[in-house]
């Protein structure tokens, strides 16, 4: 009985809310109401994020209580609570939050990005070993040409690659394919969105 009651309400809210926002983007005069609906969505998104973080907290609290990987979960919870408390108290652009950002978050993020250089090089080397197909070779040859065409190597530049071949690959071959991929992704997003708007897909649990 509850299911019969809740199912159409949730679907109706999604169809009406989403439909209104879509119509308001096309018809002038509905800006104020659209702004209100968008504000509700922003509030819900913020609350959903907080619920997710509350769930993260609960999972690691449970792990500490059960003695399962206690050190890691303790580090996570202390870091989470301390950063949350200090940032909330001082403001996100104040001294200590900015210190945390530039001395903890930024070095780790940049170093993980730097580590990606080794991972990607290894991945390319494995591709040579495992993918002996025309497409694999196309990928690797293009990559090799682009790397050589990126600029001088040990002070030596190959003008034919840097000034002719690499620009052709980047400006025509890759751009054309990326445009096709982008249009394909956008068409897929539109279809997925429209399926939600007509109630065919109900990712909200209706």
């Amino acid at each position, binding site marked *: 009985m509850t299911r019969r009651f809740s199912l159409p309400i949730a679907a109706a809210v999604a169809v009406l809310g989403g439909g209104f926002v879509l119509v308001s983007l096309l018809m002038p005069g509905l800006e104020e109401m659209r702004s209100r609906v968008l504000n509700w969505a922003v509030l819900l998104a913020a609350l959903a994020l907080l619920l997710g973080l509350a769930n993260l907290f609960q999972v690691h609290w449970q792990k500490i209580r059960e003695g399962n990987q206690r050190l890691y979960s303790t580090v996570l919870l202390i*870091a989470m609570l301390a950063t949350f408390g200090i940032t909330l108290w001082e403001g996100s652009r104040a001294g200590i939050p900015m210190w945390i950002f530039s001395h903890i978050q930024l070095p780790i993020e940049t170093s993980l990005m730097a580590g990606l250089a080794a991972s990607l090089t290894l991945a390319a080397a494995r591709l040579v070993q495992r993918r002996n197909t025309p497409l694999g070779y196309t990928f690797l040859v293009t990559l090799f040409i682009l790397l050589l065409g990126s600029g001088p190597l040990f002070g030596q530049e190959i003008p034919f690659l840097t000034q002719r071949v690499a620009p052709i690959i980047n400006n025509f071959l890759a751009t054309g394919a990326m445009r096709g991929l982008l249009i394909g992704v956008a068409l897929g997003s539109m279809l997925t969105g429209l399926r939600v708007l007509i109630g065919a897909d109900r990712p909200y649990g209706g």
Partner: protein
Amino acid sequence: MAPDLNFGLVLAAVLSLLALSYVFGEHPLLRVMLYLFIGVSAGYAAAVVVQDVLLPQLVFPVLDELFGTPTLDLGELGIRMALALLLLAKLFPKTARLGNPATALLAGVGAALAVAGAAQGTILPQVAATRNIFDVTTLQLALQGGYYLDAIEVIFSGLLLVLASVSTLAYFHFGATSRGKQEPQRSLLVDSLAWLGSFFIAIALAALFHGVLLAALAALVERLDFLQSTLRLLLGMP
């Protein structure tokens, strides 16, 4: 007041080394660093969300209402509170279903924005850019000036771009028609274009890979430079 500068530098250097040690495989200190990173990021995100959205949009208006200085009309405040309470119902398994309308509104509005964004932000500009591929002004100037090789180059590059875009799209075309008792097959034209498109996709992925690799190398150089300068600073070297 910010903590001591040297401590901050040493901490950043130690964390950088730990993160870079990921290249040699996983170890407990790396995991401690990753959990620290997740904790700090999650705490920061939560504080920003509370400060920038929750307090000004929900908590302060409710307090204003309670203290007799309303800043929002009661209907608007009621809707915001109702939506927040419905979503909070998701916390408990028994009441989770009550939160469906709130998540439905979020999904509906998100879907509408995705449709509008995809149409206005991607499809229309990309189709317009593909339509304007043939640089007509340059082509006219080249033809008027007798630079026929340049004119051919303009036409050839335009055709190449269109072919790359169309064949890439054809690669993701899975429509097929059945022919009697035979298995459904794509038409010969779409099949050929899709085959060509797979090569263009490989080239595009290589270009993307190249871009990410260069960005990662730039980050690696920056980190190594930071580690070297921190070490020199700590050792008192000029």
